């Protein structure tokens, strides 16, 4: 089925998150990119914006629909992946490499799942 790296944490709403150099890196899971289909646009916040755990910080448009992306953490956007804005197909090609945002000053998180628990969520939805 879907490959979900062990070292990442996941949300029920199909985002992944990992800690890296004091920042939280956020992206979309394999399940999400597969369900969305070919992604044609990604809207990202600006650096310095605040994101809130459980609330939408971005939307992605695929040939099927526009969907919200929810933040796994509360904090401040430190960096956005500009490359994705020009080439949203990267999310389909390598969803665990193509991160969306990096968040600093994190004060709280959503309920985060490990890979095994997340795979269960996916199995129930499929």
């Amino acid at each position, binding site marked *: 089925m879907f490959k979900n790296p062990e070292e990442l944490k996941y949300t029920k709403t199909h985002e992944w998150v990992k800690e890296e150099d004091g920042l939280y890196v956020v992206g979309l899971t394999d399940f999400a990119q597969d369900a969305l289909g070919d992604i044609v*646009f990604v809207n990202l916040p600006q650096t310095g914006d605040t994101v809130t755990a459980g609330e939408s910080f971005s939307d992605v448009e695929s040939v099927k*629909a526009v969907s919200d992306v929810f933040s796994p953490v509360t904090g401040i956007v430190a960096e956005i992946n500009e490359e994705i804005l020009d080439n949203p197909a990267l999310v389909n090609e390598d969803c665990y490499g193509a991160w969306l945002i990096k968040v600093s000053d994190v004060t709280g998180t959503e309920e985060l799942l490990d890979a095994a628990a997340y795979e269960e969520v996916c199995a129930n939805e499929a």
Partner: protein
Amino acid sequence: MKLLFERSVKGRGSDILPEITTGSYRPEAKYLRQSKMHLPEISEVDLGRHYTQLMKQTHGVNDGFYPLGSCTMKYNPRVDEETASLPNFTQIHPLQPVNTVQGCMKVLHKAGRLLCEITGMDAMTFEPAAGAHGEYTGLLLIRKYHQDRNDTERVNIIVPDSAHGTNPASAAMAGFKVVNIPSNDKGGVDLEALRAAVGKDTAGLMLTNPNTLGLFDPNILEITRIVHEAGGLCYYDGANLNAIMGRVRPGDMGFDCVHLNLHKTFATPHGGGGPGSGPVGCKEFLKKFLPCHMVEERDEFYYFADPEKSMGQVRSFYGNFLVVVKALTYILTLGKKGIPEASGKAVLNANYMMHQLKDHYHVAYDQICMHEFVLSLDDLKKETGVSAMDIAKGSLDFGIHPPTMYFPLIVHEALMFEPAETESRETIDEAVKIYLDLFEKAHSDPEYLHNAPHHCPIGRPDEVKAAREPVLKYEFND
């Protein structure tokens, strides 16, 4: 195929356009266009062939079955086009004195009254140009209502997750915050979630009933009661009125305002890029906020009047008038007996089709449906690799327009069928046979369907490239 600009040859022309008889007028130099006009120069016969060629690449309701769910692509009687073409309707100007266009005023007045009767509303504006514009106007009514009572805390519009995408979009455009609530396992509104969502900040609820799954919500009276008790208003999205017209009225379900899509339900062709018409109706207490130019009547004289606390105009002049002419013709030709017959047959046709498909395809919510139903091809895709898209493309080879795909979003691999009342039993039987054959083909030769259609002028346009790198205008060399 070549574009009109590519067919153009300098000096060639036709006599299609009449001579100018009003004399020439040359505006001041500063108003003149600087760039070249690039009007195509083309003979009449080549022009005709160009459009005939284009026509052959399309599929309309005159070509064959068109079960595009949520869109009501029914056949519209020719008589409605005929009346809308009468010169007394077409050769008028919106600024003409009202005493010279009393017939047209009467059309607006009478159509408004009849549509109020069908929806259970008290007043109706024809200004909104189409459905989403109607939604926006309806939401402005709700906003004006709360503002007028100095109740400024009501900022939330509640929208179920099965709603048309336009609902949350219109609410956001009208300055509201959208609160999404989930559906229950029967596809209706989750009452507990609704109770939890309403409060002092609730401006209103937007609902389609029957909803986008083609299901009539049996809790509708309870739903509107919950919203009213919290102080909010209820907005009815009339997109699916074709299922209930003449049988049950949004006004009696507890809705305070509605929009209709005359171009779905009331005899204007739909999907050609317009014009449409999205009239908004409301109960008496909201009437004073309606847009300007309401047609009133006194002693058989019709005139325009602006409601007391009108939101102002939402569109130039009086909306798409000729669409209203078609709607009035449709209502009058069908009459009190024909309108409920039409909705009844729309529902019967959908159930008849669903019933014959359901032993093979998985019906997303297996219960009696209204005018449309949704299949989920999730299982088929897992088993054979054939997706909803593949089946839709496959049906093109048999002269059927694909059903709505991948909507509503809460159903995976969704195909949504709306046969509409104008299709015969023979047409539906034939379509059912085609879909059952496609189901078999998915198991015997999935590759064939991955590459379908095989016999259409256009097969699988590159949707991804079209979205990522759209070419929106023709680039001339000079």
